[in-house]
């Protein structure tokens, strides 16, 4: 039976009581050695493995995941995808990713439900408006779609939103990226896993990497729960655990791991068909295809590996949501959870070489790396295969913290005067 998914294979299998579906990916025992070992089976690691195999012909690849695929931030994010970033370097990288998203389901033969329903960020004061104008103009000239909306246009676009926002944070404008939207997070991990597996990548789950063997400054392989695995090159893509891996490899990173949380409401019939983000009141919201409102909350400020968040963060976030959408006040939270986000001082990722030869790192995506999954995997694969960064990620080196070339995506700093 063909492993290809289609309406025909679905019908064929239905007639066979679905007893013949092949596994989406194998669960092989690791081989003693690989050309490349990818550590971390989140979206970024899986995408890296896939593009190594697909675009660069590197197929003797193992991907090693401590738990279950997608169990890190890939499985816990609010799924917002957009590419309208501020700095040229970031915009180019995220836009590359956006283009990959636009054909991803077909490329992977796995429906990742990429839904270009638009992402609207709100401006609540003059400072926000100025920052949005700067960003929107930069995006437009950079070839990324972006529209500035007036309050009246916003009202028409999202009628249930209260532009007064309690009177405290009136909505004065917004920036809309229509090509932005959401994707089904788990499907992204599974789709990449299935496609990578089909190209020969060995996906090893439930097997934490516990150490690295390094000789003369060059990586030899990884120690795992399933034994030592030799590797010419090692790519580390473990998000919240980047610091831990760096520690094992003997270097340090400018990254802190913090708990970021999200929550969903009970499922309801469609009420919100776009994504709304507000920096000032600090909340973002969309409605999933299953009907829950998916709401992103803030991060706890402290270092935390607990994959949980604290109550005051939900208070703040839901307070904000209740102002923007007063009709949601009676809706109810069904589940809340947290992820460990790896935050860089400039809120931009690190993608490139490490002080250890043959070892590469991709981390620091913090609160916003889901949207970058395809692009990040793509450039990281290029970087590993060619032993040097691709043009798109050259600026995102670890060295930038030494030279001072920071790519500050915190948005413009505090308001003054």
């Amino acid at each position, binding site marked *: 039976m063909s492993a290809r998914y289609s309406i025909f294979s679905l019908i064929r299998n239905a007639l066979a009581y679905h007893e013949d579906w092949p596994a989406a990916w194998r669960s092989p025992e690791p081989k003693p050695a690989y050309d490349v070992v990818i550590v971390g089976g989140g979206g970024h690691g899986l995408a890296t493995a896939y593009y190594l195999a697909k675009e660069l012909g590197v197929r003797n690849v193992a991907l090693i995941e401590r738990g279950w695929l997608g169990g890190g931030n890939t499985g816990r994010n609010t799924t917002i995808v957009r590419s309208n970033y501020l700095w040229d370097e970031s915009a180019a990288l995220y836009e590359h990713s956006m283009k990959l998203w636009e054909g991803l389901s077909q490329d992977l033969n796995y429906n990742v439900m990429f839904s270009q329903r638009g992402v609207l960020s709100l401006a609540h004061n003059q400072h926000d408006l100025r920052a949005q104008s700067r960003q929107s103009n930069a995006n437009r000239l950079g070839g990324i779609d972006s529209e500035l909306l007036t309050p009246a246009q916003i009202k028409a676009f999202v009628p249930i939103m209260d532009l007064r926002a309690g*009177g405290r944070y009136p909505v004065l404008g917004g920036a809309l990226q229509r090509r932005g939207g959401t994707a089904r997070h788990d499907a992204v991990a599974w789709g990449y896993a299935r496609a990578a597996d089909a190209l020969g990548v060995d996906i090893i789950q439930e097997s934490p990497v516990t150490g690295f063997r390094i000789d003369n400054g060059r990586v030899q392989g990884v120690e795992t729960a399933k034994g030592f695995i030799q590797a010419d090159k090692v790519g580390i893509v473990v998000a919240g655990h980047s610091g831990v891996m760096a520690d094992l490899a003997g270097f340090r990173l400018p990254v802190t791991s913090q708990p970021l949380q999200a929550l969903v409401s009970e499922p309801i019939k469609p009420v919100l068909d776009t994504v709304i983000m507000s920096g000032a009141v600090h909340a973002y919201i969309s409605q999933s295809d299953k009907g829950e409102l998916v709401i992103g909350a803030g991060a706890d400020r402290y270092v935390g590996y607990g994959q949980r968040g*604290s109550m005051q963060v939900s208070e703040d976030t839901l307070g904000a949501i209740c102002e923007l959408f007063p009709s949601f006040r009676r809706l109810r939270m069904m589940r809340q959870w947290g992820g460990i986000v790896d935050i860089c001082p400039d809120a931009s990722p690190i993608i490139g070489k490490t002080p250890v030869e043959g070892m590469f790192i991709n981390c620091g995506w913090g609160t916003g790396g889901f949207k970058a999954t395809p692009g990040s995997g793509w450039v990281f694969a290029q970087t590993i295969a060619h032993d040097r960064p691709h043009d798109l990620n050259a600026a995102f080196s670890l060295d930038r913290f030494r030279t001072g070339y920071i790519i500050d995506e915190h948005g413009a700093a505090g308001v003054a005067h």
Partner: protein
Amino acid sequence: MSQRYRLPDGGRIDRTAPLNFRFNGTALRGYVGDTLASALLSNGIHLVGRSFKYHRPRGIFSAGAEEPNALVQLGTGARSDPNMHATQVELIEGLKARSQNCWPSVDFDISAINDRLSRFMPSGFYYKTFMWPAAFWMRYEYIIRHAAGLGTAPTGRDPDYNDKTFAHCDVLVVGAGPAGLAAALSAARTGARVILVEQDAEVGGALLGLAGEKIGGKPALDWVAAARAELVESADVRILTRTTAYGYFDHNFVGLLERLTDHIVDPPAHLPRHRLWKVRAKQVVLATGAIERPLVFRDNDRPGIMLAGACQTYLNRYAVKAGQKAVLFANNDGAYATANDLAAAGVKIAAIVDTRPNPEGPHSERAESAGLPVLAGHAIVGTTGDKRVRQVRIARLNDDGSAITGEAQEVDCDLLAVSGGWNPAVHLLSQARGKIRFDEERGTFVPMQTEQATHVAGACNGSFGLASCLTEGFATGETAAKAAGLSSKSRRKKTPAASNETFLPARWTWLVPSETPLGRGGKHFVDLQSDVTAADLKLAIREGYRSIEHVKRYTTTGMGTDQGKTGNVNAIGIIADTLDRPIAEVGVTTFRPPYTPVTFGAFAGRDVDDLLDPIRKTPMHGWHERAGALFEDVGQWRRPWYYPRAGEDLHKAVAREVAAVRTSLGVVDASTLGKIDIRGKDAATFLNRIYTNAWSKLEIGKCRYGLMLGENGMVMDDGVTARLGEYQFLMTTTTGNAAAVLQHMEEFLQTEWTDLDVQLTSVTEQFATISLAGPNARRLLSEMTHDIELSPNALPHMAFTEGTVASVPARVFRISFTGEMSYEINVPASYGMAVWQAVLTAGERYDITPYGTEAMHVLRAEKGYIIVGQETDGSVTPVDLGMDWVVSKKKDFVGRRSLARPDMLKPDRKQLVGLLTDDPQVVLPEGAQLVERALPNPPMPMIGYVTSSYGSPNLGRSIALALVKGGLARKGETIFAPLADGRVVPCTMTDPVFLDPEGERLRG
């Protein structure tokens, strides 16, 4: 219908208080004390809703918080609540409820076609299709979205309001069943501060639904009443009913949701609807009981199929027979108690089907001696009945229970009560990081270890006998109080006697076999709400989704509003069997808050609308409002933006305000500027380290502009600081950064430079600041003071003095942000309004004009002064701003080292320039991007952007400031701004100072 399933007597309902309500439009009756579910059942209604995916008819399945099926929409319009558990909704007069997820009606639902097509919709089918043509996904998605979801959102602003509160206690007891009541009693007897929470309207827990239980020889509910009375009498005990402990967070912080008015027909306006309690407990006792588990057999989802314990509760607590002719299906002794009670109430017991070949236990013995028909070693292998179960098929099991043997027999019934065992409600324990383990004997997960100050008692601890619930309850209450630092004062009372019967031993069966292979006939539901079947679980595993977490996400089992309270353990059992791994290895999915759904509004509490966040107001705010100012938010402050006169828009008003300052006199409320009093022998040394420029030599009575960097070398703040004395300075900061600057400086003082004698005190709010600017500033001020010498020699630009203004003690700073002669007058804040008004009155003859932030920004831009946060964004150094003049080359200061990093020295950094459009009438939008050469189409390389841009009335043309790559060296060159409307505006880079570069005006 007239409650024909109501028993003539018994139960805890108030028969003297009948109620009218409507379900799907039909008028029905019930009693005070009913839930919506019990009232529906009393009227013979089982069919309540339709399932999520297949739209199968579904009925009332449980009698509590675990309900997966009977979700209804309450109310209409803005006061409407989707997905409410009919089993928890207290019946009130006039209640209106309707079924969800069905159209046109729950009886005839078009989408029930999905059930016919279910074969084509196994778990994850959408991942495999809807991909062609690619552009069609958005259309497919539209259909999928509209098919999904359950209830509907309210349609307007919530008319009710909510509340929040903190609370503290020694012992928080969750659950007021026998174990929780006992724990609360023994803790309270030590004098501990106790909070007892119970989600139900009444205390008593499982005892409320049982008949014939005895405690201390008397009816159990008498003991409950006595316990409650004792607790109510105890000082420092708070009983919160209708309150759910929804989440257990770090450091023994527990979230509760109290529902204050949902059970009141016309709630008084002063009462909040819901209250979120944020409890810090020294110790927590979890006595949350256990949840009954169903059995997974073919077509186990029809209305009329119900948990055995729930049948018993409906019977005993609500005096409702859930049917006339019952079949019971169990793998343990529990269901026999239900059978006995049902039989006693006159319900015909058609069969008790027990998977155990040799039933044993007290309840089954009683049933057998009562002559109830028991089919041991049998199982139900199918059911029929569309909107209500009509018949069951029963067959004998083989020895190991893995298959059926022989012919199935059919038995008619209108009620099927099932019991597959009990799952301790370990949710909160697990949220608190406590560990659980799988207990083979009890066939479920039980608490193993706590990680916080947590204790567990009763059924929640896997102790199912009433006697052990009581014993454990009393013991944990006392232990917890002791751990909280209290000791038992009164003599310990004896634990009252009770029976300790349980339903064990049992025969654990995760998946009941049926006549056809799994997936080839009928459906074995594991998760009733999400329509997940045993075949779905097996399919997921077949497809490689082997981790329990993958199975959950691929099939959505346990992801509904009930979060798998009844279904999850069965799912785990089936997965374990399929993988042939021990259950302990398969593990559980993560328990997350909330235990049951919590209203969004409760999290907001009263911090909504005007109280969402503080708006800070200056002492003169009221004046600005009366003067018709429009306001701008700057941080938490609300500042006058401009003061339009009739017919004026922003531009006209600002042009007038700006002109007034340059020609005569303007006044601005600058009270929001941060002010920090800096005192100590090392104050000057400290400023040397904090600011980029030097401070030691500043004379007393003089002011200086200072620039502050972060340690990363980027501009963080600026402002003028005055030397008030040898050891005293007054620093001003920007409005938005006041708190951050104080914290930044305190941090260095307390953690790096601990040897410095410097004390910082914020005096931002001590003073109101009135800033006069314009050629007539001195003239006016001299009229308002008799003790301040204002001559240019006595008080030159950048000098400071003290005296009185309008007879109020004042500090006067001759500093300027506008480029005009200007005085900043600080008076004690309480006098701010008075002095402001005095200034306005005295200034009339100069046509004094109040101006807002917008005019201020224009004025300073004409002078090329930067605004931190507008010309800077956290990535701009003083060198980039062309402000090396304020950067000392001689001393170290915070951020200095960073300026020497390789990228800081590059010539192509973005640098501040003035920008003049070739056409003087064109005002560039702020945020416009700049290019070397405009290309016909994007992308095109950008070299910078406009940070500030205004029409300048004084210059009679537009002016702008911009950050441009290498700009400092490129003045005079032309670049372009391609705008959103298609225009490409050529402009020339210039010096940023447009007006009075010599500064003559401000020296005056």
